[in-house]
């Protein structure tokens, strides 16, 4: 690589392509390719990682036996538990609480606050985290949160946008509550003191997003999740709700019928702790770190599908396991940030996707799966991508167009996070386009719920990315942070109501693991795979080859 000459952070040969983009910008300013027809969408979707041949198999056991899932997910469902039935005593609780919340992203933190609001004493709640409270996908949300609050918009419009974007596979009764609660959630965030972007007259700045028919994206610059989560977490801390960090749940406990608690594992000291609870909310987020189909990811370090694995073992039903969301615009250059997200809001504000000839080849705000597929087609079928020094192909996202359309200074003002990220690697997104390629972004499916976050297993609620149904087989931008806030709140309220009926503590056992192991054996699964995996492993290959386990 050292032989390459770099100009403004790009090797010379890429710079030549950039010159084409920069010189054609003015004539592209008022041109936008037409949106695809439904038929055109169906055609290009054949190239999407979900539909391209291979990559998936039928799940071999359990409630969703026969359903298709990515191999990486099926591998975890078809893996053995980390602990075995008779290895440890789980009957003596170290923590006894009414409500256990697993995972402190937007969904879990919101749930805890609302359970407290609905009358559960703070000391009867425990929030446990695999990493720090807030090291989560939530804190990384950039683009915004949808809410149909403007006069020319309506919840039913929001419903239609979401269900169309989800290819009409969303669970309608759950989706209804999502769109209906959205404006209230905006109000709640403001009441807590979140700084949502405002126009001069104090109205919200509201932008469009892929697949939305109205501008209803509420953002906090490009730090939406950071602002939302740090405010809710601050409220959570003010109430002194107890929480634990670096103590992931490695198994749920049941009395045979309902969830009665969980086993925590101390990642640093290696010992375990038992939590006894009357109600449990699972809010463990997504699975980007499984790198489905070898894709890089936008997700945080702990996004490893744990929640789905744990719930499945006790018989929770999943849905829409066959689709995965790839975000069209992951960074493809420079190497240090490959896969990291470039928010959709860049396109909402005018950045165009361009091929190596500087041509705008696609409507910039198609639903994500369609947009991502069109990028793959441009790079791998039409051969119009740009090849990076590490061999990745990508297409340009013409960020300087944002300033041409919205005025100088817009990028630093609206996208300080993006601007800073590239600046750290000597690239200036105000002057040059950025190279992008689809990246693994979101777990569309998950544990099935009703409109209050309840699962088919007594004592178990789910909220946020770990759940499935509300987005069907494809989620629109801005509906996920909303999902976490709406169903975090609903599950918090619902568990609190349940607790008021004074349920008793149940027996603590992991007997269900014996059943699961039996099912694994019956399905003929012979493997050393264990799950949940908790954290990915990126250690260098040479070091791994010399690891010994003697201490």
């Amino acid at each position, binding site marked *: *690589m*050292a032989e390459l000459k770099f100009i403004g952070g790009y090797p010379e040969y890429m710079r030549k392509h950039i010159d084409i983009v920069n010189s054609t910008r003015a004539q592209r300013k008022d041109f936008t390719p037409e949106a695809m027809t439904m038929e055109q969408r169906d055609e290009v979707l054949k190239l999407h*990682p979900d539909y*391209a*041949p291979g990559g998936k198999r039928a799940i071999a056991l359990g409630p969703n036996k026969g359903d298709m899932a990515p191999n990486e997910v099926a591998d975890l469902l078809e893996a053995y538990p980390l602990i075995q039935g008779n290895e440890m005593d789980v009957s003596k609780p170290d923590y006894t609480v009414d409500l256990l919340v697993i995972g402190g992203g937007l969904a879990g933190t919101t749930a805890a606050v609302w359970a407290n609001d609905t009358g559960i004493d703070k000391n009867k709640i425990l929030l446990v985290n695999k*990493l*720090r409270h807030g*090291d*989560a996908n939530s804190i*990384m949300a950039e683009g915004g949160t949808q809410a*149909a*609050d403007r006069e*020319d918009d*309506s*919840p*039913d*419009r929001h419903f*239609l*946008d979401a269900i169309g974007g989800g290819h009409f596979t969303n669970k*309608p009764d759950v989706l*209804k509550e999502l769109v*209906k609660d959205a*404006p209230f959630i*905006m*109000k709640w965030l*403001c009441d*807590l*003191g979140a*700084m*949502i972007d405002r126009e001069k007259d*104090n109205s919200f700045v509201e*932008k*469009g997003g892929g697949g939305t028919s109205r501008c209803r994206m509420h953002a906090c*610059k490009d*730090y939406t999740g950071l602002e939302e989560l*740090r*405010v809710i977490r*601050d*409220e959570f801390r*003010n109430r002194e709700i107890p929480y634990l960090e670096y103590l992931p749940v490695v198994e749920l406990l049941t009395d045979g019928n309902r969830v009665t608690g969980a086993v925590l594992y101390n990642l*640093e000291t290696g010992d375990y702790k038992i939590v006894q609870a009357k109600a449990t909310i699972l809010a463990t987020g997504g699975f980007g770190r499984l*790198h489905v*189909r*070898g*894709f*890089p990811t*936008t997700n945080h*370090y*702990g996004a490893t599908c744990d929640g789905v694995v744990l719930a499945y073992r006790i018989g929770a039903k999943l849905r829409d396991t066959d689709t995965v969301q790839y975000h069209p615009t992951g960074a493809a250059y420079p190497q*240090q*940030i*490959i896969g*990291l997200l470039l928010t959709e809001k860049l396109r909402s504000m005018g950045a165009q996707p361009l091929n190596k000839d500087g041509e705008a080849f696609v409507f910039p705000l198609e639903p994500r799966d369609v947009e991502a597929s069109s990028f793959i087609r441009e790079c*791998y079928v039409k*051969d119009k991508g740009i090849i990076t020094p590490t061999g*990745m192909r990508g297409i340009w996202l013409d960020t300087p167009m944002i300033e041409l359309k919205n005025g100088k200074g817009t990028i630093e003002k609206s996208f300080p996070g993006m601007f800073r990220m590239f600046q*750290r690697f000597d690239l200036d997104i105000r002057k040059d386009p950025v190279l992008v390629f689809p990246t693994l972004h979101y777990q569309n499916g998950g544990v099935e719920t009703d409109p209050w976050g309840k699962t088919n297993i007594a004592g178990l609620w789910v909220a946020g990315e770990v759940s499935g149904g509300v987005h069907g087989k494809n989620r629109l931008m801005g509906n996920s942070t909303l999902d976490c806030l709406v169903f975090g709140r609903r599950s918090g309220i619902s568990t609190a109501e349940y607790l008021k009926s004074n349920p008793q503590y149940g027996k603590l056992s992991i007997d269900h693991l014996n059943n699961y192991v039996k099912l694994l054996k019956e399905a003929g699964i012979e493997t050393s795979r264990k799950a949940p995996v908790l*954290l990915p492993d990126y*250690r260098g290959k040479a070091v*791994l080859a010399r690891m010994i386990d003697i201490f």
Partner: protein
Amino acid sequence: MPEKDNIMDAIAESNKSVVTGIDEKDIEHWITIWILGREYKVPAGLTIMQAMEFSGYRFVRSCGCRAGFCGACTTVYRIEGDYRLKTAMACQTRIEEGMYLTQIPFTPAERANYDINKLAPGIEALLTNYPEILRCLGCNACTKACPQDIDVMEYIAAGKRGDVGLMAELSFDCIQCGLCAIRCPAELAQYNYAQLARRLHGKYETPIPGYCLNRVKEIESGKFDAELDKLVKTSNEELRKLYTARDIEKA
């Protein structure tokens, strides 16, 4: 160009180094860094985080979002031959030859508990919860340490004047990494004060737009229930038609 059926394999191949860890045989250029005082040869161009992983460290602490948002990967370093102590986020900083580095996984900083509903924006709210803010010496060490290039000293100065609006704006990009607090000779926990200021500003100085409050009332009064219930029961064919017929507002 790959065959149509092999496109996914081609993509996976091109992503290998980010997904499965780096293979030595692909590397041409090496540099030397010092992790916690021990010397390692690592591929040039990696981030501090990637370089530590390449060297065999598997993170439990000091690694969260891996993208510059969470503030978990706080790092302090010095470059060989330079006396200055520098700060960075490990996931967002390229390694340099001769880097001596360590991470700070946790900042023991004081934070106050308050009820946001019982405060008013202004000097009083800050002084009641964090009287120590007045101890700032104006030394600028915090600003120099901030990996988000925030003018920390300036927002503390705004706080001392009770200007929560300015404090909120200036501190908005804060990822609560703790570096300012670690460097502060007056032992302040700047980022916690900024959190309070932002909430005060958001809550009290930017009223909720009337149209939003209106919509909440409309929803509570059941205005959209009939329409939504109808949609819930509508067949997919019919939904498809409605969806295609939507008029789309220009973004």
